């Protein structure tokens, strides 16, 4: 097994947050062992690994909640050791799993904390709180004066994210921020996070132990074990070429499928279709058992698929929304639709349900091998 510090790729992205050979020791125990890490600016860096691998410690080193025993972290031109801890932290949003909202303060006061610490003007702060609550999809009118105990788990997490964004910090540190909510809410929060990140383009360092979450959110994925970085690369690269057996096991037996979830239909495999409003004649039906003919109704919605299998024409009715996909569906979803329909391809429809193209099993196969 090859471990040790791994120089990150993504070299084309600049980085103003760099950890150089940092180690953290508590007496005999080594929590972090010579970790070197360049956080790509305006991207999402996800740290993942089993419990005790040092991912949270790494995060806490960045905002000086944990002191490094050796090595240094640079923020811009300066080393963070040379900066005032409070100034440093006020420049970095911090969201944690247990949220840690101040129970004696309203949602507004919680979100307002860092701006208040920074001494912003009152009117400016009120405006900021409203904007942040809207950003995380909480109605300011409704939530502004609520207390944390009146919030659901998901709402509390949203407030936690809003609070972390409070003073518009360039860096966002998130320590399993969606860890304590049910799977459905977690997925919603991830969607929201992706939406917010596309809008704000923060430099995010995100810690999780959920590989699906990591693959979904990461621009840059760092896999850690025993206080060391095992592999650091884009999720596509890591899923395609795990550095060693540990990474391979950690990614799970379905890593090929996970990788498919990184590509969307319109990105790489949308193809033109043969279609018509009636049943196809033998000549209309494309030759070969890898293509389909789609019968559409008056609105252009696919209702039936036809293909050759063993020299016979097979027809399959499209009865469920899971039988078709949309341009922004992931290739994993395309696979699922193909299997559900029992055809060599699935129909891609637009937002109104009209036939738009098709995704073929064959194409997916080619891409997953690349």
């Amino acid at each position, binding site marked *: 097994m090859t471990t040790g510090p791994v120089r990150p790729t993504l070299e084309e992205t600049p980085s103003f947050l760099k950890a150089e050979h940092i180690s953290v020791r508590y007496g005999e125990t080594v929590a972090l062992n010579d970790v070197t890490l360049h956080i790509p600016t305006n991207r999402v860096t996800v740290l993942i690994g089993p419990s005790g691998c040092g991912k949270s410690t790494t995060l806490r080193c960045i905002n000086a909640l944990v002191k490094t025993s050796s090595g240094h972290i640079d923020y811009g031109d300066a080393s963070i050791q040379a900066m005032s801890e409070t100034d440093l932290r006020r420049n970095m949003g911090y969201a*944690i799993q247990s949220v840690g909202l*101040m129970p004696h303060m309203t949602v507004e006061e919680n979100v307002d904390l860092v701006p208040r610490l920074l001494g912003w003007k009152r009117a400016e702060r009120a405006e900021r709180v409203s904007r942040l609550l809207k950003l995380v999809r909480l109605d300011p009118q409704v939530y502004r004066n609520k207390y944390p105990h009146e919030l659901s788990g998901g709402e509390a997490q949203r407030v936690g994210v809003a609070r972390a964004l409070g003073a518009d910090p360039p860096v966002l540190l998130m320590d399993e921020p969606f860890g304590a909510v049910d799977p459905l809410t977690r997925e919603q929060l991830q969607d929201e996070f992706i939406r917010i990140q596309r809008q704000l383009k923060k430099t995010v360092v995100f810690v999780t132990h959920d590989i699906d979450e990591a693959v979904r959110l990461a621009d840059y994925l760092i896999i850690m074990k025993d206080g060391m970085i095992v592999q650091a690369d884009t999720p596509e690269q890591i899923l395609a070429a795990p550095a060693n057996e540990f990474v391979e096991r950690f990614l799970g037996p379905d890593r090929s499928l996970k990788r498919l979830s990184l590509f969307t239909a319109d990105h790489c495999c949308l193809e033109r279709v043969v279609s018509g409003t009636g049943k196809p004649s033998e000549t209309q039906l494309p030759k070969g058992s890898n293509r389909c003919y789609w019968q559409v109704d008056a609105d252009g919605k696919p209702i039936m698929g036809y293909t050759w299998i063993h020299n016979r024409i097979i027809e399959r009715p499209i009865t469920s929304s899971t039988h078709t996909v949309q341009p922004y569906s992931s290739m994993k979803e395309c696979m699922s639709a193909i299997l559900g329909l029992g055809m060599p391809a699935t129909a891609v429809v637009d937002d109104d349900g009209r036939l738009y193209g098709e995704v073929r099993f064959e194409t997916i196969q080619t891409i997953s091998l690349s």
Partner: protein
Amino acid sequence: METERTVQELVLPMGANVGQFESRLNFHRKLAAIVLLVFAVSFFLPFFFARENRISAEIPGRISALALLPTLLLLLPPTMILLYALMRNSRRSEWLLSFAGALGLLAPLAVLAYVGPQVVSTLGPFARYSPGSGMYLYVTAVAIVYLMKARIRIGDYIGLAVALAVVLALGYQGSFDRLGILLEARNFGTRLSREITAHIRITGISIGISVLVGIPLALVTFQSRRMRKLVFPLLNVLQTIPGIALFGLLIAPLAALSQAFPQLREWGIKGIGNTPAIIALSMYAIYPIIRYSFTAISSIDASVVLAAQGMGMSSGQVWRIVRLPLATPGILHGVRVALVQTIGNATLAKLIGGDGLGVLVFEGLGQASVDMVLLGMLLIIALTVAADRIFQILITVLTPVSLRREGV
């Protein structure tokens, strides 16, 4: 429980109802049965004690010794409770409880007013009397009646007000003049109010000192592990020293101190009197204050503190914005416990020459005057209850709004 079975058999046929309402009904019938039992027992115990003079032997007086009218008055509340138990639960039966409660308060007062002149006419002009165990039990039964009520209504407050008015009227008229406690209170005259103020002052100063020392000490103890190893064992040892012993232990060093520095004596610092009492009381009061404060601070959700630090609060800001507001209710609880405890302990001040209500208790013991001891005790209880109430209100006011729901 003879009564209970009869009641159930009369109104509730076996297995007739199982609903929640019925079970609540059932529960209230059981309570009613208990109340009736307590009432019944009270009738067989001495209802009051009479004495020829202050120190002569007690002569127990029973209900059977009373005339028909007061006896009937005493029997009315139990009868109403019996009726209540027999009735289906409704608004009307709640009112029955209210009536029983108000009457139950009035009846013993009427008996006391009635007994006074009787005692004087039989035992002579120096005769005195005091409530007996029967009456205490009777009042206990009435208290349970109030507890049975789903909620205290306006009518109940009117009942209490009427009872209070009757007491005042009868008292003004002189009906309770020969009541032992009142005789003792009258004997004390202005000294009584002096001792009460002294008791409050001693308690107040002691609590003040222990708050000023205890709360900062709790904060320091929380911050430093070494302090923790020092403070808690010390407090534990201090707490195991019996009260009287600690009071006594302080006499020698303080006496020596005031001997060495006569200036101190002018400030009231000497071996006996209020100073050693206040020192000892503060030492006792500091324990609950530190314990509660420490627990309050350390039980704050760690993630809240972590988040606060992570957001860039300085150590002082974490204390001011997060820890202290969240710990305030717990700290105040500690002060409340210390206060209640100190009001009781301050009684011991008398033993080393201090003032306060202990004077009544210990002098009463010395003179074998039960009434005097009782007077002192009742005043101490009244002070304790009042202080506790006031503090509860204070805690509610000072607790951050969102934390109040957790119950004070």
